[in-house]
């Protein structure tokens, strides 16, 4: 038994010490803070986490709030479009970049640089471009196209797509780089085999290479997905949720109620819902991914 104790605590002591920051972060921050969040979402805490237990009251109110429901809807719409378009455009651009083109690194830099800019900056610039009077629309009208309309920021039905344009602008380049790296890692001989088989290039990409890039897609989905769930800065900088509440998102709701409106319990209830959604999406995926890996090796 002392052997057991020794093995558990003393052997590879440095390794155990070195792993403590991670363990502490996981236990205290990711697990601890999450539990804290869940617990206080069942109270009626206002500005300080001091309230009493009130059961599901906060959730009842949450689901009765049209701003929250709209936020969730918006996130679903924006999220699916954003995920699909980022992956699709990222992949298409990567494929184009993979055609032995000239100036590859120049193209790549141009597509990647927006990723270096914060969402605040991204939001500002696009807000400026889409400003109906001073931006693109105004310019075109001044230039004579009196009917040119590009008022997505002021149009409740289109505002999410305005966000999408900005979001894609910021993130597609990075996904493109990921995909390009994935494409380049495909065995040369697969390409040769496909050429000998007489399979057209586009067909090779779609039927053979694309399914081979599963790992890259998973990475990309994790990265893009976690960004979507956290979507906040871009909305604040670009539309501040407007017009009306047509571009509200859950993270903004959480933030507003926690800090602006001094109702942290409501904010925490909302964020618990976000967490649950993430878990619902992620757990099956992780099960497949990690469970599968365990079986393979």
């Amino acid at each position, binding site marked *: 038994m002392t052997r057991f104790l020794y093995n558990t605590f003393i052997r*590879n002591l440095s*390794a155990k010490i*070195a*792993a403590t*920051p*991670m363990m502490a*972060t*996981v236990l205290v*921050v*990711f697990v601890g*803070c*999450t539990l*804290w969040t869940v617990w206080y979402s069942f109270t009626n805490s206002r500005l300080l986490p001091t309230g009493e237990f009130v059961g599901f009251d906060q959730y009842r109110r949450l689901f009765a709030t049209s701003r929250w429901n709209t936020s969730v809807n918006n996130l679903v719409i924006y999220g699916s479009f954003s995920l699909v378009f980022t992956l699709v455009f990222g992949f298409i*651009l990567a494929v184009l*970049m993979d055609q032995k*083109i000239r100036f590859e*690194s120049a*193209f790549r*830099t*141009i597509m*990647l*640089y*927006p*990723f*270096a*800019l914060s969402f*605040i*900056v991204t939001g*500002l*610039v696009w807000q*400026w*471009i889409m400003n109906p009077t*001073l931006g*693109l629309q*105004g*310019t075109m009208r*001044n230039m004579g196209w009196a009917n040119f309309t590009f008022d997505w920021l002021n149009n409740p039905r289109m505002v999410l797509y305005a966000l999408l344009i900005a979001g894609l*602008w910021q993130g597609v380049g990075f996904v493109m*780089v*990921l995909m390009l*790296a994935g494409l380049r*890692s495909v065995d040369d001989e697969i390409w040769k085999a496909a050429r000998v088989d007489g399979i057209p290039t586009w067909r090779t990409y779609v039927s053979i290479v694309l399914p081979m890039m599963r790992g*890259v897609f998973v*990475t990309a989905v*994790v990265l893009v997905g*976690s960004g979507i769930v*956290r979507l*906040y800065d871009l909305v604040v900088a670009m539309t501040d949720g407007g017009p009306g509440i047509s571009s509200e998102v*859950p*993270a903004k709701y*959480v*933030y507003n109620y*926690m800090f602006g409106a001094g109702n942290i319990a409501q904010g*925490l209830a909302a*964020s618990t819902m*976000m*967490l649950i959604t*993430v878990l619902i999406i*992620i757990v099956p995926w992780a099960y497949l991914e*990690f469970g599968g890996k365990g079986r393979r090796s």
Partner: protein
Amino acid sequence: MTTTATVSSSAQTEATDVKSRVDPRGPRPKPFFTPRKIIIYSILFFACLYFLFPLYVMIVTSFKTMPEIRWGNIFAPPIEWTGEAWTKAWTSACTGLTCQGLSPGFWNSVKITVPSTIVSIFIAAINGYALINWRFKGSEIFFSILIFGSFIPYQVMLYPLVMLTREMGIFGSLWAVILIHTIFGMPILTLLFRNYFAALPVELFKAARVDGAGFWRIFFEIMLPMSLPIFVVALILQITGIWNDFLFGVVFAGTQNYPMTVQLNNIVNSAQGSPEYNVNMAATILTGLVPLIVYFVSGRLFVRGIAAGAVKG
């Protein structure tokens, strides 16, 4: 041999000039303008327009005067180039009472970014290394939770973290921001390092252990020198991420350390009064300059590192 005709003398080739044209020899002819190429380059060209347009607008606007901006042509280059907006943004735009522009925040941002980047990368590198080479019971579970963690909205964590850092007695100091950036950088960086180390041959690690090197020695002398590509990726991600951060810097770093983004936020978010778009744009570019330079300088390394770290995912 009947094929001798085709290896005929040059005289014969000349004589049957017309025939030799239909008798392929040498490289396959490749016209320069194929429809395929035209399509590829034009799509790329339009993509680049999309990506460059905002940068162009930012730059052009920042050199205009406000009346010219109100005139309303975002395409047009300034009639009268003026650096006023830039000077104002850098030296005299007001944040409340202090009208020093972005410049003081710049150094604060440096003060925050440098140590946060170093510490967060260092910790993540050790995590990745420990997860791959020194697996212990439950290490995979910790890692999975860490990855889940990357999906949690930051805002949710803000409140408990304030209390946590308060209890630790570091709230309102550089230590607190460093801690926070280390925590929130951990999931993705650990993933990157873990994947990268997983792709290195285990035998190197084993050989070093047989040679008697311990945890740290292997890390510093064997693993680190081989990890340049992934370090570049991590560096870029962290520098840009931390530099662009607003919330953590302002909440945790303490007054004396407000980062540059705070001033940017004050300049563009002034709740009242008419916005000066040219100053906004100049300030925006100035704030984004450091990450942009980092990208432009290290783009190639970044791409290589991504290939090394992320693809194996």
